[in-house]
């Protein structure tokens, strides 16, 4: 049983991973937790669904369309909302993302209704056998994407000039502007990236958890928990965190009983934060005096 | 001579960096002692150790012969030690008065009766406020009492920090670069204040400063550290003519 629980947990964890990465990216670059991140994904999934159903797009074109749409959505969020309050403290920004959550939820509910919709299966449903467990191909594809995107982002932030500039902007936007860094553009880029990641997360996850306005609520919460594993900073940390949560949940569900399954992630976060306030992979401690 | 504060081979490491390397020194009761040294020598780190913001990896610190290296940061005030920061660290949104009152925090008495404004707390608050106003006036901050400190000029902010430290009725104050960023006029003013605090209130002062004009004129005794280790100690004139100190820190005076 262990093998199967483990493998299935890994698969579930991969569902949280991309959202966790997006949470990290937005937090790193804006110091905001984006509560609407899940809803970007949800909208992305709906857009892809509409493209497939009503315009007969194939899966990859639909994904591309959804990516474009969500990037636009991210940019719109920045231009219309976040930029207006850019100087406020993070609590205000945080609450504003909540406002976007309400709006996006409302819009999706209004236009597409509140019932669950199927997303056409895109992967061969025949499951694969690995290490004594069975896993569906959809999950494998999901994991591969998460790993690839995570790696690219990791390299981007660590080694490229634009990546470092993004971090500089977070650190101190005014000084960053004095270095010639186009701050507004970089912030815009961040939200564009949030949209990009959201679209991927949404479209990849849709066949597995189906499409509805609330589809991402639970995933987003797990995404936060996973992101905290990476100290809200480390991208590989967030991915590892996501997988860890999936595995631990499943093992707890399997060995301790299903009542313990849902509490696992929250017990993990409470314990983690109690003992490692900056996550397992948090950053070097900064001196403050 | 009585020792007020004593470091005994204090060592602090940050990963590979040894910020303090077996520093030993003695701060004499009632005096003004200076701590100088090149950038990165470990002065601020040492101050952090003394005020318990930083644990030391080795060595001990004694306050009036009581070992304090396991005390809580907030207990230092109860012992009688207050400090200011190298980078101004005020409660920016709050007024000068409020800032000073926080300095007197350990005098508020029982927090529960304070929180409910019981009669004893009411009396106590009034006394604290009166004293805070007195301190502010002593530091020429009388006009700024009701202004949020973030709007004050830099020099005034430095003084608010000092007032806050004084409000705690300390026996010793640690000052980290009190005159950095001040022009000569302001430096002179602060110098006078430091002297008055020392002589009128009898408070021991331990200060870090790069402004030699200030250090050499106010300090009774100076300790020099370099690369985290003791380099020299002595009176200002001894230090000024010490070859090692000139080489490592003061530089040849070409005027």
């Amino acid at each position, binding site marked *: 049983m262990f093998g199967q629980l483990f493998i299935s947990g890994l698969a579930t964890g991969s569902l949280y991973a991309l959202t966790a990465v997006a949470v990290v990216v937005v937090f790193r670059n804006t110091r905001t937790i984006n509560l609407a991140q899940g809803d970007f994904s949800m909208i992305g999934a709906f857009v892809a669904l509409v493209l497939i159903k009503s315009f007969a797009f194939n899966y990859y074109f639909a994904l591309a369309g959804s990516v474009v749409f969500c990037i636009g959505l991210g940019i719109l969020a920045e231009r219309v909302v976040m930029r207006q309050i850019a100087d406020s403290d993070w609590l205000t920004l945080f609450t504003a993302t909540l406002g976007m959550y309400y709006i996006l939820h409302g819009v999706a509910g209004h236009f597409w209704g509140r019932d669950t919709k199927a997303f056409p299966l895109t992967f061969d449903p025949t499951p694969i056998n690995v290490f004594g467990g069975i896993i569906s191909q959809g999950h494998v594809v999901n994991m591969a994407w998460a790993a690839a995107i995570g790696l690219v982002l990791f390299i981007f932030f660590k080694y490229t*000039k634009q990546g*470092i*500039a993004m*971090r*500089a902007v*977070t*650190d*101190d936007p*005014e*000084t*960053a*502007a*004095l*270095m*010639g*860094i*186009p*701050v507004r553009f970089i912030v815009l880029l961040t939200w564009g990236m949030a949209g990009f990641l959201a679209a991927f997360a949404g479209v990849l996850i849709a066949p597995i958890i189906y499409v509805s306005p609330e589809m991402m609520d639970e995933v987003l919460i797990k995404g936060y928990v996973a992101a905290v594993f990476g100290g809200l900073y480390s991208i590989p940390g967030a991915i590892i965190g996501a997988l860890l949560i999936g595995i631990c949940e499943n093992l707890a569900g399997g060995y301790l009983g299903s009542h313990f399954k849902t509490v696992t992630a929250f017990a993990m976060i409470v314990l983690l934060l109690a003992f490692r306030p900056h996550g397992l992979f948090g*950053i*070097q401690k*900064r*001196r403050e005096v | 001579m009585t020792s007020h504060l004593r470091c005994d081979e204090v060592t602090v490491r*940050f990963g590979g*960096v040894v910020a303090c390397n077996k520093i030993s020194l003695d701060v004499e009761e009632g005096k003004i002692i200076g701590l100088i*040294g*090149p*950038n*990165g*020598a470990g*002065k*601020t*780190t040492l101050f952090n150790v003394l005020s318990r913001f930083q644990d030391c990896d080795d060595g001990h610190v004694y306050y009036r012969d009581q070992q304090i290296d396991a005390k809580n940061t907030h207990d230092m005030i109860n012992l009688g030690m207050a400090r200011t920061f*190298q*980078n101004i660290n005020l409660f920016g949104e709050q007024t000068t008065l409020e800032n000073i009152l926080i300095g007197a925090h350990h005098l508020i008495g029982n927090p529960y009766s304070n929180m409910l404004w019981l009669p004893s707390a009411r009396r106590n608050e009034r006394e604290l406020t009166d004293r805070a106003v007195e301190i502010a006036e002593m530091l020429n901050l009388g006009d700024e009492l009701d202004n949020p400190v973030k709007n004050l*000029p*830099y*020099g005034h902010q430095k003084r608010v920090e000092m007032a806050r430290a004084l409000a705690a009725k300390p026996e010793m104050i640690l000052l980290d*670069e009190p005159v*950095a*960023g*001040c*022009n*000569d*006029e*302001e*430096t*002179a003013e602060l110098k006078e204040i430091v002297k008055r605090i020392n002589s009128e209130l009898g408070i021991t002062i331990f200060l870090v400063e*790069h402004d*030699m*004009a200030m250090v050499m004129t106010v300090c009774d005794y100076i300790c020099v550290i370099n690369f985290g280790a003791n380099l020299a100690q002595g009176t200002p004139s001894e230090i000024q003519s010490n070859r090692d100190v000139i080489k*490592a*820190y*003061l*530089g040849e005076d*070409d005027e």
Partner: protein
Amino acid sequence: MTLLRLSNLEASYGAVRALQGVSMDVAEGAVVAVLGANGAGKSTTLKAISGVVKPTAGEIEFDGKRLNGMTPNQIVRLGIAQVPEGRKIFKDLTVAENLRMGAYARSDKAEISKDLDMILELFPRLSERAKQLGGTLSGGEQQMLAIGRGLMARPRLLLLDEPSLGLAPIIIADIFATLRKINEEKRMTMLVVEQNANIALKNSSFGYVLQVGRVAVEGVAGDLRQNKEVIESYMGA
């Protein structure tokens, strides 16, 4: 030839009128000192030049171009860099990354790495700490990093706001010597705000003294050092 000209510059923070008509001329290749008491408006002047503070009136002209209304990053691209007051190190970036950000607007890779070597040589402390986070440096080390970061931009005009703040005496002399050397070799024009009037005037050719948002005294550095008013208020007795 005048590189930078400020005419009747005004700026305010809400109700506080920080600049009330400041005019300055900075010749190409010169080192110009700006002195003044706390709150006189020195930093505000520099911030107005680099576009962080929007002037409410007056003109800023750089190399014949009007800077009013440009964003900071446009201005940096014209060749103006600033070493801001209070260091403003990127705390979560390493020393090396901080320096790299200084050269953000440049694309001449080879020259950048030459400048990097030059700065690490100037501040050996920084090269020891290349991988340390900026926020963990000591006050003086941060100041060195801020200066180094400004130099990495290799600007035509470098604005320095209190570069000597928190530095050990021995370093201050070194730094000014180096700044002068760079000024001469690279023809980098510099506008230096300083509390330490003595050293500032010694290393500059021209000086301005600000008082409550206005230029009170101006003149050739040598003359200012003799000026009684200046001596009294800014150079100690």
